[in-house]
């Protein structure tokens, strides 16, 4: 019987999936943050890419 109580359960493929979950969540957060910015009147479309790049860089910094 495997020791599922203590063994490491996630392999490389699972980590790939979990990182995808995190990255997909990032996209959802960005989509929502842009909606909020628009509703609050702070959503300058010309600055959208810069705003989004900043969020991505902050969130993904551990990858680099």
């Amino acid at each position, binding site marked *: 019987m495997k020791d599922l109580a203590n063994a490491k359960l996630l392999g490389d493929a699972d980590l*790939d999936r979990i*990182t*995808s979950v995190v*990255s*997909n969540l*990032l*996209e959802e957060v*960005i*989509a929502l*943050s*842009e*909606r909020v910015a628009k509703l609050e009147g702070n959503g300058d*479309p010309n600055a*959208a*890419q810069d705003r*989004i*790049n900043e*969020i*991505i*860089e902050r969130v*993904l*910094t551990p*990858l*680099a």
Partner: protein
Amino acid sequence: MTDSIFDILAWRDEEIPRVRTLLGMRKFWSGPLYGQLREEYERMTDGKPTPETADEAWPIVDALPSLPRWAWLDRHIQDRLWDDVGKMVDDRIEALSRSLQPKNDDLGTLRIEADFTYPEYYETIDFHRQDGGIWREDRGAAVYAMGARVIHVGRNNDFQLHDAFADSLDAGEPQEILDLACGFGKTTFSLKKKYPNAHVEGIDLSAPCLRLGRRMATEMGLDIDWRQADMEHLPYDDNAFDLVTTTMTLHELPLDAIRQSLAEACRVLKPGGTLVALENPLVGEPLRDVLTQYHSQIIVEPFHYDFRRADMAEFAKDAGFTEAETHAWSPFGDKPGTATNPRSWVTPWSWIQAYKA
């Protein structure tokens, strides 16, 4: 919503943050993450003989700590691209079908073969990780068309690269122009805009892409003929065209298909005619070249490895062209591997230009 294909495929307000997220991730991948890889590479080669070729650099690159993360993000962005854009197209599928119906005022001709034989590699490989490819149904072509606007980091929303390619052509005043593997016509449109008085014809294996191309061309007022055909077996007489082009195609083909396609291009060109192919080759910088080849592997371009190691000028001469040359092409001023920005990833472009005597 109107039946205009450009209205249908335009980004909606709520979709733009998702597109910008993809672009932002690609920017992170090509900037900080690539820069980290380069720093690691420079540390590992410091004080040792500098690798001069991709093969020499390969084992070093494989040992770089950031390589798996770089590769993971590359793969993720590509998958996310098709997933996001696929959902966008699904929301438009009825309007898309209506728009692609033939209309009385369609410009040019569209010739689709009833029993078309696709090359085996084309049917069996989902190039660029796009499930189902671009040839089975209109949805796939539309997904490709929308996705193509977010691949080249912010400079391709209006296909500026293809316009720059056409603008850079120096082929005199061609009257008969053939665009091989034209897809939905990115380059074909640019050719017709540059040479409005020429007869321009685009061929591709994908009928859905051709339908999409014709609709777009009609809405742009561009009179172009579209035909389903295999560039290995061109359905044209000898000496029929002044200029034959193909962009970002050859690297998708097995080497024997490249040889056959070049021979066909030479056959249908008139004496004095020119073939120009836009491609992205190795650049002679070992780290970047290894990563370029990994990138091609990741996004499923299975013949890219062999293509990048083959001499296309020699292939062209073997195919019957009397002169052939390749040269780097940097339409937006970015030269990969230069000292100005060595830590930023830039897709290298090159021209293969061949002449028929």
